[in-house]
């Protein structure tokens, strides 16, 4: 990416690049997550933002609970049918472009809650960009997911392109 050359500016003070590259650079480095924490994974998400792991090292520490101010939805926890309606509404309220991380086995696939009340993966109701395995995933796995997402944003992969057609 052209902006890397910024370090080697030779005194001219001028840098040429493409507009979309600048936008991607900005988006990649300032993800504002909405922690949609419902269950056990939310406790591990708390560990991700606490000092030992510190999500802010990757520019994504400004957690926002208003969907209108955030562009990364981190669904951490089991989503049951009663909650799924709310999740869909929250996702719809976020401004484009927006990304979704399904943190943990429940959000990804329902996990061992294969029963009458649990949604078998949030991709039945909203598109997902990154799935994190684990029950719950370790904080390092969440950091890995965020950096992977940054790579995709850099590469210009459109959000939600991993959409699975759900049963709704």
């Amino acid at each position, binding site marked *: 990416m052209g902006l890397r050359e910024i370090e080697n500016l030779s005194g001219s003070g001028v840098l040429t690049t493409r507009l979309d590259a600048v936008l991607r650079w900005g988006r990649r480095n300032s993800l504002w997550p909405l922690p*949609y*924490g*419902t*269950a*056990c994974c*939310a*406790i*591990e998400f*708390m*560990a991700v933002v*606490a*000092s*030992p792991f510190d999500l802010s090292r990757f520019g994504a520490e400004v957690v926002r*609970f208003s*969907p209108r101010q955030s562009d990364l939805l981190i669904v951490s*926890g*089991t989503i*049951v*049918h*009663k*909650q*799924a*309606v*709310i*999740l869909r509404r*929250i996702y719809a309220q976020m401004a484009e472009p927006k990304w979704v991380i399904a943190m943990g086995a*429940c959000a990804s696939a329902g996990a*061992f*809650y*294969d*029963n*009458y*009340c*649990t949604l*078998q993966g949030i991709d039945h109701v909203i598109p997902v960009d990154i799935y994190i395995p684990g*029950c*719950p995933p*370790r904080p390092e796995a969440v950091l890995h997911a965020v950096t992977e997402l940054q790579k995709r944003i850099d590469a210009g992969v459109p959000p939600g392109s991993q959409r699975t057609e759900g049963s*709704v």
Partner: protein
Amino acid sequence: MSPPSLDRFRSRLAGTIREEPNPFGDAVFRAEPSDLRDVLRSLRDEHGFDLLLDVTAVDHLELPDSKPRFDVVYILRPSVGSERVRVQCRPPDEDLSLETVSDLWKAANWAEREVYDQYGVRFRNHPNLKRILNHKDFVGHPLRKDYDIKKQQWLSEPDDLMDEMRKLRGGAEGEESESVLLNIGPSHPAMHGALRALVDLEGETVRHTVPEIGYLHRGFEKSAEKGTYTHVIPFTDRLNYCSSVMNNVGYCRTIEKMLGIEPTPRAQTIRVVLLELGRIMDHLVSVAANLVDVGALTNYWYLFNERERIYDVIEALCGARLTHCYVRIGGLAHDLHAGFEEGVEGILRELPKALADVERLVARNRIFLDRVVGVGAITAEEAISHGFTGPCLRACGVPNDLRKDEPYYGYDGYDWNVIVGTRGDTYDRIWVRMEEMRESMRIVAQAMKKMPGGPVDVDDKRVSLPPKTEVYGNIEALMNHFMIIMEGIKPPAGECYGSIEAANGELGFFVVSDGTGKPYKVKVRPPCFYVFSAFPRLTEGGMIQDLIATLGSLNIIAGELDR
């Protein structure tokens, strides 16, 4: 009032009520539907059983005595004391209803709603008999034996809760008053992701609160009926996920009670160490989140660092940071690792510093004190009526603690105190937890010092896997291993209630066995379900910002609340 006594109750009601034999030692009385209220009232008013622990039902469809089909179970205990009594009553199959006891105990309000939701037993004259865990469009009753576990039902629109709010507002309907409705949650930073409350505000004063739960009802009790008794252990990890190991112990202890097994001295002491570390971990999250909710963010970093320190020790022990799954029926997954002792020493050395740091920041902080002192207060009588146990009840001045009332695992051999508050407000609830962490540290230090040697698993072929060298070496051990894995552990048929003092209060398991390797029913008595049922009482009349501070101090963990 004279101390709680079942003997007096037995002699008084001889002839009118039948006592059922119970192999597991609990007193069980069978009441006729017409006598039920009188029996329960008599137990409460004349015999000291003032705490309604839980109400649930058993669907006898697949048991030999399937007529009448449902058996409703009321579990009672005195607010201080260990004796427990169960009153069971079978509603007639034709109308499937019983008289409510929600006017006798406020705790019965939600408990009966849950029985209605899950089993379809109705309660006459209940003030608000609607679904509580499942959504409003749900058809059928999932814990009935003939409801297919995989039959999912979608919800199209969330409940607007206006039916309940209209009842509370009365006739005014907001026309003349200045009141405003505000929906908080479930996606709200202070509502912990899975709680919701609709509040009616006049200015900033809360007039009415309608809480809604069930946003994390993930079917623990139905799922538990599908595997063996051992398969349930990882599910219990995810009840109160802030202190997984306590749920493990609570469940395994109940099954051990059914089997008549007492863990080895070493296993008991290791369990005590882990229970107290679990309590510390739980209180750390609770206090940290509560302080964040009132704006004291720095404490979160201090306290979470200590939690990480405990994570490191527990992870080295069992491989998991959060969901430990370390306890087994009859013992533990394996013995302690080398280095556990040093790890615990590190925790005991560093934690007091963090607690002192937090105290320095908030104990004399005017802003903090103004936010919490006198906020969300409740009297002991009301708290007992609502079914409070644990730190929230102790904050009201009631020394209710199973570790003292019914000492298990040698808790009576340690030198420690039950911490109680005086006012039952948010400040007391936070401070009871802060001091309890210090008491837990004392217990951990003493337990580590006296740690006995010996095996961690009981020598009992019914529950303990034989060593691998035996399994590969002789046919008897191989068969034994095969039977425990494939058919599972088989407690004798019957119904049993067992409980421990978990971080949030009395965590009970009501288990029904039909003699096979799979549980017929596992019902959790979740402490925070009953604490949260008092949320309207705690918040109405206060300010909207007090609602947030109060909620944090209750430590409602959704996994345990909704199961």
